[in-house]
């Protein structure tokens, strides 16, 4: 990779990290800044802080730190050699009392056996263990071993969805104006995904636009084939 390409990629990683930092600052109290770690053309983007604090945002209840939101995004140059591609992201909610995750929201760009976007829940339920045992599951007593599907690459939840869940459903402390920040970030995310879905399913998008009264013509080369990953990836 040339120095210019490396500098461009780094600037894109910083811009991405800055957006996350802004969202965290506008939603959660005592949110740290972000840090980008680059090695060659690969990046890790996470909240700043070394050692056991690395990658973690404190979650407070009435000012007391009771949990952490642990984030990281692993990124590289995409196939066009111009943009940042997310190979994986993880958003974990970890209880301080036992330093063990409670929820894990995860995304994998490449995945053969599990949903690209999924949630793990760390809990116990005897009925589930019973069912999984009868089904011959290799880890019948581990609810956290299950991968709950969450919409694939394009319809997956993003950080702002998790933040809203933490504040509204779980009751963690927030900062004033947090919901406006969440809605703004969500709107931006959905535009990005809508564009990507439109590119991958152009003929479908064109048909829908025509039904709304738009004049849409196919390209001279003809309607592009719908993206296989968009249609079928779990």
């Amino acid at each position, binding site marked *: 990779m040339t120095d210019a390409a490396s500098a461009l990629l780094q600037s894109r990683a910083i811009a991405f990290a800055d957006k996350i930092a802004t969202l965290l600052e506008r939603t959660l109290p005592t949110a740290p800044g972000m840090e980008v770690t680059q090695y*060659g053309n690969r990046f890790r983007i996470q909240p700043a802080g070394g*050692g056991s604090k690395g990658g973690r945002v404190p979650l407070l209840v009435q000012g007391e730190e009771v949990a952490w939101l642990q984030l990281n995004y692993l990124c590289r140059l995409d196939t066009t050699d111009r943009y940042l591609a997310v190979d994986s992201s993880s958003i974990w909610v970890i209880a301080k009392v036992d330093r*063990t995750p409670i929820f894990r929201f995860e995304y994998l760009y490449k995945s053969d056996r599990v949903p690209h976007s999924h949630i793990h829940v760390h809990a116990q339920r005897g009925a589930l263990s019973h069912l999984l045992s009868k089904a011959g599951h290799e880890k019948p007593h581990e609810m956290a071993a299950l991968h709950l599907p969450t919409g694939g690459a394009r319809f997956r939840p993003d950080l702002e969805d998790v933040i809203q869940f933490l504040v509204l459903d779980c009751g963690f402390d927030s900062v004033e104006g947090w919901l406006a920040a969440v809605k703004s970030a969500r709107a931006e995310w959905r535009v990005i995904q809508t564009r990507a879905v439109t590119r991958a399913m152009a003929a479908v998008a064109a048909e829908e636009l025509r039904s709304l009264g738009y004049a849409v013509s196919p390209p001279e080369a003809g309607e592009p084939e719908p993206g296989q990953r968009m249609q079928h990836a779990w």
Partner: protein
Amino acid sequence: MTSVHTPTRDQLMQARASALSRVGASEEDLAARAEAGSLLGEEWSVWAELREIDYLLHGDRD
């Protein structure tokens, strides 16, 4: 707002070792417990950190 780190390969390998020392386990033990679904406490975060560093190194560990 965002800080940038560009560690050397040696620094990343040191970070791996530091992560393992936080839980006093060997990588083999941790891998076995991860496979069995029996990680405990901070081992979860350490295991994740090892995989993150391995991603950065991308085959440059050896």
